[in-house]
């Protein structure tokens, strides 16, 4: 039987999809029974979704223009 520690490792390292189908079902079964692991998985998904919304730095509007000028020199 797969342990909570194994499940969390598989989820965080994104190695789940490369596992055998039997292992993937084992994870699903575990997830259906273990509330801590499903909470953990949900938090990872929320982290991914929230990370997509974080503010990234934008350069000034003439950045590309200046860059091309410098590259031409």
């Amino acid at each position, binding site marked *: 039987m797969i*342990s*909570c*520690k*194994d499940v*969390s*490792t598989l*989820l*965080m*390292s*994104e*190695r*789940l*999809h*490369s596992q055998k*189908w039997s292992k*993937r*079902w084992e*994870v*699903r079964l575990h*997830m*259906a029974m273990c509330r*801590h*692991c*499903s*909470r*953990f*998985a*949900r*938090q*990872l*998904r*929320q*982290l*991914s979704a*929230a*990370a*997509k*919304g*974080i*503010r*990234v*730095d*934008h*350069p000034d509007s003439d*950045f*590309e223009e200046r*860059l*091309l000028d*410098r*590259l*031409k020199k």
Partner: protein
Amino acid sequence: MRNKSHFLQNWQLFLESVYDRCVLSDKPFRLRELADPTSPPPIEPAFLERLRRRDSAALAEVVQEHARALFAGATALGFSRDQAEDLVQDVFVVFLQRMDSFEGRSQLRTWLFGILYRKAKEKRRITAVDDQTDLIESVLESRFDARGRWSHPPADLERLFLSKEIGTLISGCLEHLPFSQRQVFHLREIEGYNTTDICKILDLSVTHIGVLLYRARARLRECLESKGLVK
């Protein structure tokens, strides 16, 4: 025989997606969502040819399309705006110098990010890819008992994730991540690259990328949990 196993495999995937859709629905999560996204298509040969001829319109197109993402990638690693601008310029200088050796099998942005990270490492004088061991692993280890069951289960962070400051909190936590983990996290979550492409960009094995993603996520989650509990 081969066809049969192929058929079975597709059938398996179909059942898994039906299960995820119907049984798991939205509540816990869908395993399929964790599958790798597909790679974007490689560069078109005609466009590559124009670049090799040093066509200035083609170069301008490349700069317009990718320079901002490279700038964001550099600042995400902790470089100042001025340093990031210089880095992006360096990337395009190398790009023009090595254009002839680019075979066009991968996407242009993948290649440009590869150059960016090599240059960033040179600037920071980082020689090793990362440490062999990471403290975060023992922190995580301590959350489980000897049989691998949660002894310190994850705290409820529902309200924290729904709060408006979650973006700022993640940015703050990202600053404490080691260089290579920040790179991998940015490529995966912000740029949306799949693990195969991240391997190409950073010239690392799939296993190594898995370890870095694992450490980055573990660290961020622990950091958010500590902030959530303080709140």
